[in-house]
């Protein structure tokens, strides 16, 4: 009896989280008339797969996709290159100012993005970088969370391993590439996944840093599209589905990593 109640409660909550997203899929396949009907249509009578093509005619949606891929992909690669590099230095080296620098790094976690937003905007405007990939990518090249995460994973690697490689005459950078990085592959996967999903969905900075339609990322492009053609819900929904697909796929194939990532880092 209690078991049945548990299943019922969980089932209900899951329905509340999943049904709206399924409805989004349904909306994306409806005709414009169906989306505007007084009686909302739950399932399209004749699925309009053409909506997805119309999207590309009515807005530079191809640009939105490319922009999102370049920005989220570029930032993810940067994190995977820089975060472990810095994490390694903090995990395995002693040097003057080590603690001071580490505190200064962790302090940046207390600085929410919006505090940087206006100065960054002015900086980008002065550089003439607004509406460019540089503006969208450079403020996010590294991340204190990621560095901290990598440091935690690198610390347990035995110092003897590094010492042995040095005796064998390996260069410092080679040690890092050949010994350290392969040991932390799972952590890199978590870091890459999180960075990509988070940046793919990012809304505020791409909204601020771009004004030309061609430079918009998908999340921002969607809302513009929606304001401009106020009632085109079928296209808005189709765009939302496209925005959602990569995250859903990543999630499907790496749910365990993602859940581990959340519990390990509490990353937002």
């Amino acid at each position, binding site marked *: 009896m209690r078991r049945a109640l*548990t299943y019922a409660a*969980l089932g209900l909550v*899951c329905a509340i*989280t999943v049904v*709206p997203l399924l*409805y*989004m899929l349904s909306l994306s396949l409806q005709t414009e008339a169906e*989306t505007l009907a007084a*009686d*909302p249509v*739950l399932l399209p009578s004749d699925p309009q797969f053409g909506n997805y093509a119309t999207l590309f005619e009515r807005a530079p949606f191809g640009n939105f996709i490319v922009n999102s891929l370049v920005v989220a992909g570029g930032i993810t690669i940067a994190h995977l290159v*820089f975060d472990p*590099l*810095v994490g390694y*230095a903090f995990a395995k*080296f*002693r*040097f003057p100012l080590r603690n001071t620098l580490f505190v*200064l790094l962790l302090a*940046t976690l*207390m*600085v*929410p993005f*919006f*505090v*940087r937003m*206006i*100065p960054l*905007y*002015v*900086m980008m405007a002065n550089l003439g970088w607004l509406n460019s990939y540089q503006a969208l990518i450079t*403020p996010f*090249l*590294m991340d*204190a969370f990621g*560095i901290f995460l990598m440091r935690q994973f690198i610390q347990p690697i035995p*110092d003897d391993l*590094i010492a042995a490689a040095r005796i064998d005459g390996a260069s*410092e950078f080679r040690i890092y590439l050949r010994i350290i990085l392969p040991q932390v592959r799972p952590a890199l996967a978590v870091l890459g996944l999180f960075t990509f*999903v988070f940046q*793919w*969905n*990012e*809304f*505020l900075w791409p909204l*601020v840093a771009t004004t030309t339609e061609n430079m918009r990322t998908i*999340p921002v492009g969607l*809302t513009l599209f929606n304001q401009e053609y106020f009632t085109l*819900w079928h296209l*808005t929904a189709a765009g*939302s589905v496209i*925005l*959602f697909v990569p*995250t859903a796929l990543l*999630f499907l194939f790496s749910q365990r990593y*993602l*859940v581990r990532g*959340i*519990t390990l880092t509490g990353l*937002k």
Partner: protein
Amino acid sequence: MRSLNRRYAVTAYLFLLPAVVFFGIFFYLPIANILSTGTQTGPQANVPAGIDNYVKAFGDAAMHNSFKVTLIFAVATTVGSIVLGLGLALLLDRPLKGRVVFRAALLVPYLTSVAIVGLLWRNILDPQLGILNRLLDSAGLPQQQWLNTHPLATIVAVTLWQHVGYTMVLFLAGLQGIPETYAEAAKIDGASPSQQFWRITLPLLAPTTLFVSVMSVISGLQAFGQAYIITGGGPANQTDLYVFHVFNVAFTSRDFGYSSALSFLLLIVIVLFTTLQLRAGRRAEVQY
């Protein structure tokens, strides 16, 4: 090999160099700039204004309203996601068939962009087009003007919809970290399930609860998309979330000096909140 040779310090600095440059330019320089821009005024933020912007902020009714709205939003989403997230975690923290599926279904909204969430719910909540009123209608209940009569509560609910899976995962991890032996010992001592929960489980979850509440308050104070996409801050500024307000002061009114001062004030509030919560948490942990 505990402490490596001094000559390796040079290597370490080389590894650190990109980070020093990056955090200098993209974190510390902006903070310095926001402090100095906050003391300036004019369309280019080029006229020295001392503390005028801060004085203005304290007497600004729009800012007070926005701050109040944001505080309510942050506290409501935090309390809501702790209660719901913990409740769901407790339900899932037992051998159930399809656990992974339930967890996945709950986590999916967390992975969607605020742009999707905002637009989707704007459609669902629409008084004429939306399916929610249609559902109420077919259940024989009166239809609602969600975004007109309860705008703030509605965007809190939408935010909870998106974030509950995240807190649930964190609480689930917390629950799984509690050794079985505690529950067994309590059972032998004759503790009722509710005693077990209030006296054992909840106190042992204090660190998780603290972490969740700190993260949730901080993200609540920074919410933006809900106002920008769903309500436009309205009606009558009832959902004028602080970051949305700052955004408008900066990019609609083009007042960079005042918006910088407002940003800095929120930074102070966030730092205060975090410190208070962490201190309260430390005390809670000491008790047990």
